[in-house]
């Protein structure tokens, strides 16, 4: 019934894939106190779309480049202000919003602009489907192959260095993957889903998981459950899919907090 439509099948495939890879990234991002990364990057990618349209390069390429620059920008600022890592997000986010605002004034055809801004999980083109599958495979492979290194990085860069983890290289790979994932996913399903999947499943998982590994697995399981429930609910109740997925996870988090009633770690 639910899956008789092509667009719903695509929504589930893309939704579940993103629900697997985004918490992987989200876990590390949260541990580094950079929870708002998803927001900051997706705002920057809007600026990239606008810039692409203004100077006449492919807007998707523009968005991806902007995301990559922004992600490295966050890394750069974060290192400068070691104890105030969240400041980096605020700076990049406002830069993104400001740039997008100013640049969009120069875009002559706003329908073009809108078609790049407008991401919805129930309106996914074949091209976007392929892109999401591709990035998912890359992210999953990286996380399996570099599991140990990424874990060290998430907790403490200094001890990672002492344990002979090539911090710089791993940092580079992680930053690049984050940028690529956000730029592709926010164009496909919208920024809202990205930024919430990055944080809320991890927040829930922290209440149950007793180790890094457990927490990571829980957060992926939660994210998949939220996405499936959210999509199903939105289909039968006629609700906006993006918002429903987010609210499902928030409700679950609230229930978890009420039941558990203890702080993480």
């Amino acid at each position, binding site marked *: 019934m639910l899956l008789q439509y092509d667009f719903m099948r695509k929504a589930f495939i893309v939704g579940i894939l993103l629900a697997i890879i985004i918490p992987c990234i989200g876990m590390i991002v949260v541990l580094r106190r950079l929870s708002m990364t998803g927001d900051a990057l997706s705002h920057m990618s809007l600026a990239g779309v606008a810039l692409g349209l203004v100077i006449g390069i492919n807007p998707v390429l523009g968005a991806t480049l902007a995301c990559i620059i922004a992600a490295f920008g966050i890394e750069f600022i974060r290192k400068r202000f070691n104890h105030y890592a969240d400041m980096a997000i605020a700076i990049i986010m406002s830069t993104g919003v400001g740039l997008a605002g100013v640049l969009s004034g120069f875009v002559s055809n706003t329908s073009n602009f*809108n078609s790049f801004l407008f991401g919805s999980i129930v309106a996914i083109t074949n091209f976007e489907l392929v892109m999401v599958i591709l990035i998912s495979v890359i992210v999953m492979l990286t996380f399996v192959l570099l599991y140990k290194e990424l874990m060290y990085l998430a907790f403490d860069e200094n001890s990672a260095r002492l344990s002979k983890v090539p911090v710089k290289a791993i940092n580079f790979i992680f930053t690049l993957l984050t940028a690529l994932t956000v730029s592709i996913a926010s164009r496909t399903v919208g920024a809202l889903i990205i930024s919430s999947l990055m944080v809320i499943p991890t927040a829930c998982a922290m209440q149950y998981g007793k180790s890094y590994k457990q927490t990571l697995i829980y957060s992926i399981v939660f994210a998949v459950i939220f996405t499936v429930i959210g999509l199903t609910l*939105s289909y039968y109740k006629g609700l906006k899919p993006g918002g429903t997925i987010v609210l499902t996870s928030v409700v679950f988090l609230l229930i978890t907090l009420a039941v558990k009633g203890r702080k993480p770690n």
Partner: protein
Amino acid sequence: MIKYVSKKMNKGYGLLIFLGVLLAMLGGCASNDKKQEDGKLKIYTSFYTMYDFTSKIAGDKAEVVNLVENGTEPHDWEPSTTDMTKLEEADMLVYNGAGMEHWIEQVTSSLENNIVLVEASNGVELISDELSQGNSDPHVWLDAKNAKIEMENIKNALVKIDEENAQYYESNYEKYATMFDELDSELTNRLGALKSKNIIVSHEAFSYLCKAYGLTQVSIGDLEADAEPDANRIAQIVEFAKTNQVKTIFFEELVSPKVANVIANEVGADTAVLNPVEGLTEDQMDAGEDYFSIMRSNMDALEKALN
């Protein structure tokens, strides 16, 4: 204690002086009197259709400028500071009303000059849709009879502020009034003869066209051109398209066709453009398109899809 009080008073004086300066600056802004040097009227219009109707009446007696640039979806538009400065120097602002320009009240209440405001949809019988929470569809001009009323309102306003050229405006209006009548009967005949009457459109912009010429619209989105659709709505529309054998899903040129494509894919239909004449692209402007030619292309598209 005394020291404290005097400090406080100093602060108070500082604030007063600051406010005084501000007031003086505001006063300076308020006192400008507008008269165009070349004797031509300066008229701004809120979006393309208003621009088209106004320039058809005003001819070479006025400089008509469209606020929304070509290729821009007017629902998303908001005036910039430059636009506000331009409006301060204008003689007349023509807008559609009926909820089309959400910014109009804010803009007009902050203007300092005595600009003539023309609400073109004045006197048009509005359709209020209960389903969309009393939100009415502002696209009144898609009924040629309403378009004629709008042009008449514009003509009346021009006659009022520029009596010298009243004869000129009247004769222009007469010419186009006949064209609207012709368009109206053409629409009635051609759309009345269509085999199927159901159209699927990307946003609820065609209530007036449908009501006047006997069609039924099913819209993918809401009145807002770029609202995210919900899955249930898409499924319903897919089912509707299947049972009614809809062969074409319409979308608008200035709106992303993403959802229209999804539905077309699902039912194996084509997509085509149905233009609510809100704005033209640069190319269409260069090709000399106007309200009448776009309405005729719409008729062609509808005939192709519904026969």
